[in-house]
């Protein structure tokens, strides 16, 4: 187990270096630099600016410096607001993590619940309702769902205030949930697609498991239905669900770019979109590499969890 974990972590390193390299090459192939403006800068100013951000070195030197700094988790300085990129990421991350946790809980809890509920009422009204929601979810990506939710719940009904320009970030870990009215709609919009996905997989694998002999045995020895479903069936049905958690997590990160822009949430995703539009090289590279590391790490966690859920798997 430990050996496997170490091996996986080590295997992540060339992958991350490769991603960093590709990002570097792509960024420097982009037409136009960060100092482009309608009024051309005086050459001397441009020279100084380039020196300040290390853009006057030859490309290979820039690349090596970049990799060297990366190894120390130093992403350099943002050109747009002259701040340390590591600080920016650290600062913005909190908001994104908050949204991520809320969405993840929403998607897994509701998805599992809906899937189990559907499977227990197979071909009944409840099942059709569950499958219907799951199918609608597949056609409602965040970009479609978010406007609809906003029109209905924020504009027409006025239940949630997502349209106010300042998103209030409060630290949930200190027990301050006063911004929940602003979190609900983004969470639903971002989490609906993964929720539907999880529900569909849970339903399929529950139907498979419920037919097994050990479930019949559990029922025959007179266990309560709840214990049969949760302890005997659902635990085993979880295994296929676990395998898709990795991709779902990656999808959440990508989705947060849109949702954060849409709901004006000052998280890392919105920061990335902004940095692309103004060609802030350092920030773009920093965020991309950071996301790649997070996704690779989450995939590792999911693979390890897989071993806990299914003891037959040994590493």
């Amino acid at each position, binding site marked *: 187990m430990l050996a496997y974990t170490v091996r996986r972590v080590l295997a992540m390193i060339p*992958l991350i270096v*490769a*991603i960093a390299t*590709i*990002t570097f090459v*792509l*960024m420097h*192939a*982009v*037409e*136009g630099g960060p100092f482009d403006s309608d009024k051309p800068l005086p050459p001397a100013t441009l020279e100084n600016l380039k020196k300040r951000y290390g853009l006057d070195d030859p490309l290979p030197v820039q690349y090596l410096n970049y990799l060297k700094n990366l190894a120390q988790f130093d992403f350099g300085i943002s050109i747009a607001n002259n701040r340390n990129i590591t600080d920016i990421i650290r600062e913005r991350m909190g908001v994104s993590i908050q949204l991520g946790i809320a969405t993840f809980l929403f998607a897994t809890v509701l998805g599992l619940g809906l899937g189990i509920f559907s499977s227990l009422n197979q071909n009944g009204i409840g099942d059709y309702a569950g499958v219907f929601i799951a*199918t*609608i979810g*597949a*056609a*409602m*990506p965040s*970009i*479609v769902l978010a*406007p*609809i939710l*906003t*029109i209905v719940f924020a*504009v027409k009904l006025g239940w949630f205030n997502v*349209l106010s320009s300042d998103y209030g970030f409060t630290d949930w870990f200190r027990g301050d949930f006063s911004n929940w009215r602003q979190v609900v709609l983004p969470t639903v919009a971002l989490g609906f697609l993964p929720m539907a996905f999880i529900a569909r997989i849970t339903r399929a694998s529950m139907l498979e498991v419920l037919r097994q002999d050990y479930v019949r045995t559990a029922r025959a020895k007179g266990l309560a239905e709840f214990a049969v479903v949760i302890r005997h069936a659902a635990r085993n049905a979880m295994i296929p669900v676990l395998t898709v958690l990795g991709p779902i997590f*990656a999808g959440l*990160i*990508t989705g947060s*770019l*849109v949702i954060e*822009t*849409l709901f004006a949430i000052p998280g890392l995703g919105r920061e*990335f*979109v902004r940095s*692309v*539009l103004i*060609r802030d090289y350092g920030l*773009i590279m920093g*965020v*991309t590499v950071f*996301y*790649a590391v997070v*996704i*690779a790490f989450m995939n590792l966690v999911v693979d390890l969890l897989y071993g806990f859920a299914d003891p037959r798997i040994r590493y």
Partner: protein
Amino acid sequence: MAATDQPIAQPYDFLEQQFHTKQRGLWAQAWQRLLRNRLAVAAGVILLVILTVSLAADFSRTVQRYDPTVPDFQATEQNPSRDHWLGTDTLGRDLWARLLQGTLFSLKIGLGTQVIVLLIGVTIGMAAALAGRYSDTILMWLTDLAYAFPDLLAIILLRQVLLGRDWPIIGEGDPQIPGFNGVLLVTVIAISFVSWTTVARLVRGQMLSIKEQDYVAAARAMGASPWRVVRVHMLPNTLSAVIVSATFGIPLAIFAEATLGFIGLGVPPPNASLGSLIGSGLDSIQVHPVQLIWPTLMVATLMLCFTFLGDGLRDALDPRTRH
């Protein structure tokens, strides 16, 4: 006398006599199964209608009465009327015309992406499965790398890199492939470069298992050249899985484009894509929500229809799920 003229026994003509009953091959059977799936048929018909109408928009005044890019400041932010079927936007442009333009753009993105994805994916998947251990290792590492790259980030970066330079076919000026202008091609290429991994893995897996099948061994034993074995015996057997994967890939590509358009990285302003329509609709959500509803509904319809069609195709083509 006459009897001697006739040969004693006619050679039995199998081809003429026996097997001239109605043949139903794999594809005909799959087609029948697909037709029996009402949901998939309905989705297919709706998609065909949408495609036809949006294609016809540029040619017929009956379909599209206004130019999608021409503003009319006498008629801004109108609600649906007999004149403007879906109303007008903030600049008085006809929303029906803009919706059709955006839909056509999205469909081109979806279909164009799958063409490139299939080309890259099938080639790499085949090369990985058939060209030896080293090429397998290298190509699969590349695939893992492309998979690990955060999708939307890669698309945005590639798009920025490719835009605004004078590439051979993409070009800057007039479209060299009719109907496919530079921005569209760049977007198609950018989306393709992150989505080929699924097809590559799929094809590799299929090829690896087909390679061990008896009919491939038989073909080789009869002296078929490797190329012939691949072309005649192996490729057609991966086709059904590839078609299904491509169908599911279309809504994903449409969604990716809509996302780009929404955050302002879509087509340049006078033109419309579904994403940019949603984006500009969101800006005027408080004063004129109609503007937001149409493109949102269209994206949902497209995604739903392609998903249903994909489900139907999978049931029809995949032998394992046959009932």
